[in-house]
């Protein structure tokens, strides 16, 4: 069995963001980068499947981006993936989700992966398109938004998260692609020995130009901070004073604090 996991490196979402000089993306200066949270669940699920099958499957982890994405790939290797593929692209944000999906599909097309795992969306762009589009380009059955995954031979049983806590159960035959929702599992922390072992694992570099054959179908027109709505009150200062001020406001404006 051959498994592919697709991961993205994103900024820490607790950061403050501002538009970049060109006004077509966020400014990347001073940001801390990490693996997209949804993709951590994808890596974990792939590695668990490999372990459940006696470590027989080979797990390839792929990421598109500049040199810094090597860190995200190393983390995935330390979590248990076998080999990395770094598709070198200095400006992945300038490509739309269609192009990103086409690059992954171009890489995967002749590799005969039995299962492809992705996160259900990225934390920065959040389009939730790439996984399903890769499946469509490769002609694979696909289930998105998984909070449960089981693979029995060549059948995948997927539990999809629906609105309001409901789940939808879907069965599909491999080869297939699944996208992972938060809470699917508990992603492991890489241990020191595994971090050391990961350093010896191969990371293959491929220039993006070798895999990109599609023009964009959508482009960013502008990036800007959201307008502050509603004219809410902002309270700042000493904690004790703030508490008194807030209680005063709640007594005046709501019927629930007296």
């Amino acid at each position, binding site marked *: 069995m051959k498994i592919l996991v697709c991961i993205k490196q994103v900024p820490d*979402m*607790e950061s*403050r*963001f501002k538009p970049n000089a060109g006004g077509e993306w966020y400014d990347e200066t001073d940001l801390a980068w990490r693996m997209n949270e949804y993709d951590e669940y994808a890596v974990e699920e792939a590695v668990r499947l490999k372990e459940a099958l006696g470590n027989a499957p080979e797990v390839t982890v792929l990421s598109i981006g500049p040199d810094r994405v090597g860190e995200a790939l190393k983390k995935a290797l330390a979590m248990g993936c076998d080999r990395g593929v770094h598709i070198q692209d200095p400006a992945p944000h300038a490509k739309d*989700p*269609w192009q990103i999906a086409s690059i992954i599909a171009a890489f995967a097309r002749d590799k005969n992966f039995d299962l492809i795992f992705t996160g259900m969306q990225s*934390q*920065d*762009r*959040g*389009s*939730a*398109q790439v*996984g*399903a*589009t890769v*499946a*469509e*380009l490769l002609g694979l*059955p696909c289930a*998105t*938004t998984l909070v449960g995954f089981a693979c029995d031979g060549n059948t995948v*049983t997927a539990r*999809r*998260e*629906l*609105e*309001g*806590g409901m*789940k*939808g159960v*879907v*069965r599909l*035959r491999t080869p297939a692609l699944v996208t992972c929702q*938060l*809470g699917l599992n508990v992603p492991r922390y890489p241990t020191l020995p595994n971090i050391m072992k990961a350093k010896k694992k191969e990371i293959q570099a491929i220039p993006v130009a070798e895999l990109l054959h599609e*023009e*964009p*179908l*959508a*482009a*960013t027109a502008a*990036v*800007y901070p959201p307008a502050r*709505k509603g004219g*809410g009150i*902002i*309270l*700042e200062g000493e*904690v004790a004073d*703030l*508490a*008194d001020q*807030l*209680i005063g*406001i*709640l007594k005046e*404006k709501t019927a*629930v*604090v007296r």
Partner: protein
Amino acid sequence: MKALLICEYREGKLLDSSYELVAFADRLGADRAMVLIGSEAEAPRVNGTVYLADAAKYGEYNPDLHKRIVLAAVERENPDYVVFVHSSYGWDLAPRVAARLRAGQVSEVVGVVDGKLEVGLCNAKLRRTVTPKSAKTVVTIQAGAFSPAASPQGSPRIERIDLADTASALEFVGYEPAEQKEVDLSRAEVIVSAGRGVGKKENVAVIAALAKAMGGELGASRPVVDAGWVEHSHQVGTTGQSVSPKLYVACGISGAIQHLAGMKKSDFVVAINKDRDAPIGEVADVLVVADVMQFVPALTAKLQK
């Protein structure tokens, strides 16, 4: 300009979110036709064409078959936009339709600015407008972003769509109901919710104490539930409960879109956050810029006096 709107249908019912698609088409100023994979009895109450395929035959969820039904409607209608709700149904199906049409997709649209589609970036901390470069555009709209003006009325002209071949690579097994709710937040007058900003599991008790002092219930954001700090039955948001209390207090919640969608109908919102620019500030009537673990105990103590 014409928009083809894809309704949602679950457990034998048309979902109300389908009318948000109509509100979006009106906002665009587009003519519209709709697609429902469901039943005639549940057809949306709108004037104009509704393409109907039978859910008894094609399933309530089967992106393989539903994709082909939507494509058949696209062929007949030749729309400029194909529009879905950004939901577990819509974000699952839209990219498959877009790929077949080689159409650009714009996901989770929150507004229309000078004719351009506006979406969030970095968890709604920034906004982005997107320009399609394809003849047709596939759109998913954020749930709740486009509200229908009045209660729907009209009588659709039904056109049936049938597929010759119903073979599918995917089989829908069934639904699992939501876990029994120990807490019914929908009836609570006051909800005090804990977010990732509370720092650790042990600190949730501090937030629960404020909820008790205010005579309310404890709520939580998704990361806190996923981390196992709070039971899922307390979760507020699209995948938890949607709430509309008289007072909502968000403690250390940055305000991810999914959370805001579940609580923005609250009458009065207080946010406590050390980040002045956190998106929760957008919906807050009062934003207290402070460390949650310093401010909340002080507030609780004063309320108990």
